């Protein structure tokens, strides 16, 4: 007798639960994060995660540096949404100092916020496409994203981190020649993004991989206090730019985009449409750019007090709490980024999903672990 292989009928095969570790190093994950997914047959029944691989103790570091030094640090909480971090932080410090940022400064600050949203959404779209096997779209999206990076580099000197915000305003300005070339490039980018939107809406394989996968109801969104495109794609109408306008958003109102399906496809629709809306906002900000200075001087010492500041990062609501003790170093800086509540929704999103769809669901959330861990 060669071997003792026994043939079992499918019904007699025991469906054991299998634990599948994903990460911290894994092709799906751009950042270290450890997942453990438990599958029964092909379906996920539960999942747990372990954060902390990117925890750098930034909140504690903030207490050991001055308000100005923290600008450099906080821009590096996350490389993708670097500008919105310093925006939220500067708003907080400016409120404690009682500073009024000049309108031109607010417009330029907002312009960078929207350009950052564009680059972040295109980055996400390419990564999602790559993770579901659509490498061509990854290449197209990231090639077009270079247009946004070029504009940001021209304005600030940096592609990824910009150091545009200072306490009191922004340190950049824009001339007439720049204005014209930026407007024309935004127009080029917009036509490309319309192509991506059409793909999301109509391309059969993209729809097959993303529809009815990773579902979250509006109630689940509310329970986990999820924010940003994840919330809006489940029909929850929240956006800090409209609900608590900051920077120049009270002058260039935002059209908030929602979708009721609550699946990965809905998240793609929301982000694609948001990108087009952001390009429109960039255009509005440029043509309506008021004259005047771009910043006011800020004293080094910040009066004692507390402040809560919010902004809409590409992934949703980011909140900063700062307490000042009257010195030139903050007594406490607390940061909560939008990825943290999104992570809390993941076990629900993954439950019942096929193991083959893990890539869709994980990519659909737009995780930024550097933001979450700080």
């Amino acid at each position, binding site marked *: 007798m060669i071997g003792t292989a026994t043939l079992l009928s499918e019904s007699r095969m025991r469906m054991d639960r299998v634990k599948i570790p994903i990460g911290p190093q894994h092709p799906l994950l751009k950042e270290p994060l450890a997942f453990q997914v438990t599958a029964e047959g092909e379906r996920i029944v539960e999942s747990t995660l372990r*954060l902390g691989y990117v925890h750098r103790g930034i909140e504690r570091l903030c*207490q050991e540096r001055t308000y100005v030094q923290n600008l450099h640090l906080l821009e590096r909480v996350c490389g993708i949404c670097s500008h919105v971090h310093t925006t939220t932080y500067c708003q907080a410090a400016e409120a*404690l100092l009682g500073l009024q940022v000049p309108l031109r400064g607010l417009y330029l600050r907002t312009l960078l916020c929207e350009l950052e949203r564009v680059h972040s959404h295109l980055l996400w779209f390419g990564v999602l496409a790559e993770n579901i096997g659509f490498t061509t779209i990854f290449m197209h999206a990231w090639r077009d994203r270079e247009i946004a990076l070029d504009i940001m580099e021209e304005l600030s000197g940096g592609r990824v981190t910009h150091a545009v915000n200072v306490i009191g305003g922004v340190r950049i300005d824009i001339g007439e020649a720049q204005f014209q070339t930026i407007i024309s490039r935004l127009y080029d980018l917009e036509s490309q993004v319309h192509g991506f939107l059409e793909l999301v809406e109509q391309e059969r394989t993209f729809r097959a991989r993303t529809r009815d996968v990773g579902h979250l109801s509006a109630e689940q969104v509310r329970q*986990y206090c999820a924010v940003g495109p994840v919330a809006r794609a489940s029909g929850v109408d929240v956006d800090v730019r409209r609900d608590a306008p900051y920077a120049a958003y009270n002058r260039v109102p935002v059209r908030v985009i929602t979708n009721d399906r609550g699946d990965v496809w809905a998240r793609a629709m929301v982000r694609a449409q948001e990108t087009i809306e952001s390009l429109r906002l960039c255009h509005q900000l440029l043509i309506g750019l008021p004259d005047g200075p771009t910043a006011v001087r800020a004293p080094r010492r910040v009066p004692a007090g507390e402040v809560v500041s919010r902004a809409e990062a590409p992934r949703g609501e980011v909140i900063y709490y700062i307490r000042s003790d009257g010195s030139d170093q903050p007594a406490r800086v*607390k940061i*909560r980024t939008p990825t*943290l509540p999104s992570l809390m929704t993941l076990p629900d999103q993954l439950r019942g999903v096929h193991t083959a769809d893990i890539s869709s669901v994980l990519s659909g959330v737009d995780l930024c672990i550097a933001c979450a*861990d700080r």
Partner: protein
Amino acid sequence: MNFDLVLESLRDALLLPEIESRPVPIDERFVQIPPERLREAVAVLVNNLELRHLSTITGQDTGQGIELLYHFWHGNGLTLCTTVPYEKPTVDTLMALIPAAAFYEAEVTEMLGVTFVGNADPGPLFLPDDWDGDPPLRKQNAHG
């Protein structure tokens, strides 16, 4: 947010004749609640006022105790503030009312050593498995 309604609801439900509150920039009201009444206060917000969006929980060592700030949002910002003493840094968990509290409480537990009674999985969340020091945001560790 109808802030007067919030204060009135809290006063009535908690039977507290006076509730201290103060405005805080940028668009926030801070409301003082005794730690042992905190869960009840949040129940009022969630069940009576549909005020459910908890942005995060800030913990800080003020030198007089560990202050906990529960940052809510409902058209405007509302922060419930409470302070737990060093000798007994405990407060009830909010997880049954707001599942999102899970991670926020776990972070305060590991960073400041506060116990949230009823939170079955308090971490570690961000600190490494082999963390052997004191909670990093406690004052004596602030410049360690």
